[in-house]
């Protein structure tokens, strides 16, 4: 039953985090696929929202943009950016998925630039978009990302979106809404959470075929390790069939 690729594994792992009755703001691609999978597999009451205004659509196929018509297809509401972000800020949204070019041990994310000169960067990325907002407001931030030691960086060259900032109680002191923050990091190799006191990233599960050592070897900083590290469960046949047949038949995401 190893007949799945790492993208499929990450999506299935991520989907399992989303319990019935929860709410989530997602982007395009893998996060969207994970939310759709959760909804179809085990959480029919998962409410999916998009930052540009779409709320609770019956998503008919993968959106290309978080503002395209797929995000409002038979939706319950087509609204605006303030509506969605303020629903998050009021505390009504449980989850969000984010990503970036770099992530550090506290879950801070860089999606802005590489290079030291801000006005003339070596590489310019899109910037925050809604990521900083969602990372600030949603109760639990999830990240789905391939694991390599450049991406898992000792220090982000630019902190676009807040994780636990510099760890400990630094996020609580920053003024960001109380109790929200990074929750789990899902990679091709492992699942990480954050140790409650130091807020440092910690391995809690490894994927079939990988060891803790592999994970650490592909990480630019020292990872903490949970007392018990479990082996992550592979996708089930049902999950895979929903994902392949219903959600992404053209393999836009799982074919990557």
């Amino acid at each position, binding site marked *: 039953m190893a007949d799945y690729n790492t993208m499929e594994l990450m999506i299935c792992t991520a989907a399992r985090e989303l319990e019935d009755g929860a709410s989530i703001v997602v982007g395009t691609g893998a996060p969207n696929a994970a939310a759709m999978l959760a909804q179809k597999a085990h959480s029919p009451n998962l409410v999916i929202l998009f930052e540009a205004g779409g709320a609770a659509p019956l998503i008919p196929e993968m959106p*290309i943009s978080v*503002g395209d018509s797929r995000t409002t297809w038979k939706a319950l509401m087509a609204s605006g950016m*303030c509506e969605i972000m303020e629903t998050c800020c009021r505390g009504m949204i449980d989850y969000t998925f984010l990503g970036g070019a770099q992530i550090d041990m506290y879950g801070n994310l860089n999606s802005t630039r590489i290079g030291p000169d801000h006005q003339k960067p070596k590489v310019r990325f899109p*910037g925050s978009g809604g990521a*900083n907002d969602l990372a600030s407001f949603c109760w639990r931030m999830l990240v789905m990302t391939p694991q390599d030691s450049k991406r898992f960086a000792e220090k982000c060259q630019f902190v676009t979106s807040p994780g636990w900032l510099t760890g400990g109680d*630094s996020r609580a002191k920053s003024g960001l809404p109380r109790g929200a923050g990074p929750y789990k990091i899902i990679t091709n190799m492992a699942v990480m959470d954050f140790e409650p006191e130091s807020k440092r990233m910690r391995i809690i599960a490894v994927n079939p075929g990988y060891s803790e050592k592999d994970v650490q070897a592909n990480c630019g900083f020292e990872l903490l390790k949970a007392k018990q590290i479990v082996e992550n469960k592979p996708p089930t046949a049902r999950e895979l069939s929903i994902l392949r047949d219903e959600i992404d038949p053209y393999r836009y995401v799982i074919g990557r």
Partner: protein
Amino acid sequence: MESIEQGIGKIFTDPDPDNARAFFRTKSRKLESKVMSVKEAVEKFVHDGDYLTLGGFGANRVPIAVAHEIVRQGRKKMGFAGHTSTHDFQILCAGEVFNRVDVAYIVGLEARGLSPNARRYMESGKVEVSEWTNYSLSVRFKAAAAGVSFYPARNMMGTDTFKYSGAKIIECPFTGTRYVAQPALYPDVSAIHVHEADIYGNCRARGITVSDFDVARASKRLIITCERLIANDEIRRDPSYTVIPYWCVDAVCEVPYGSYPGNMYAEYFSDEEHIREWMKTEEDPVEFKKFLEKNIYSCKDHFEYIEKNGGINKLLKLRDKEFMFVKARD
């Protein structure tokens, strides 16, 4: 009021509400026809150096005809609100229209990848940037629409996004809660594409609204492009659906398919083939120059651009796709 901390980014527009009031005092409240061509509207209302905002969401309900016309007329040194700006950003970069940008989301086209030419331009050092977020820019427009100089928000704190912004951190006088004070953003000129408008500028729109209603109110000058002109009687039949009132509007341009190659809710889907071609061509600056010559500079108007890229037949296919009719898969 003392701020606790402040960003090092510039604020490119004046947040002072009394200065804005002095301008708005002079703006016409007359119910008179504002119908004109996109060419005229850009000539009249978009000037070199102005701060510009484009409505919609990158490649969804975007005023593409206005963006092309701005490039065609060679506007320069503008300021720009990169409020999830994707294909529209690509177009303005192609014309090197702006030299300063409030960044929320730029350079990328979401799931489509990054624009090579926009990246080159943004990495050239020719463009001054301040960093913000999508919500920050939304709040900045909302504050301006409310006629004040700032609104507080709970984002950005603790990050470099804040550090490179023009925002400041303050505390709530009631609860002590910390906020990022977001300075009001009153654009000099904006363009918004809607489904329907009357000749005076009363507008209806469907689907996602992004920040457009606040942008319309915050802007000193506003160009509306619409899929269809409708009778004023139709607006008055049920005023519940008017989302932008005419007194915000300076020009009304009827541009069916005005969001092409972007998506227009309940009208047509985006032309992904053409957007892919655009991104691919950008990889080679020489090819891209030819591409722009064909698609912007040599075009009389938006319709000529559409005709060069498949015309009405293409648009009928995009309508099928929007509504997910079976043949959309063909």
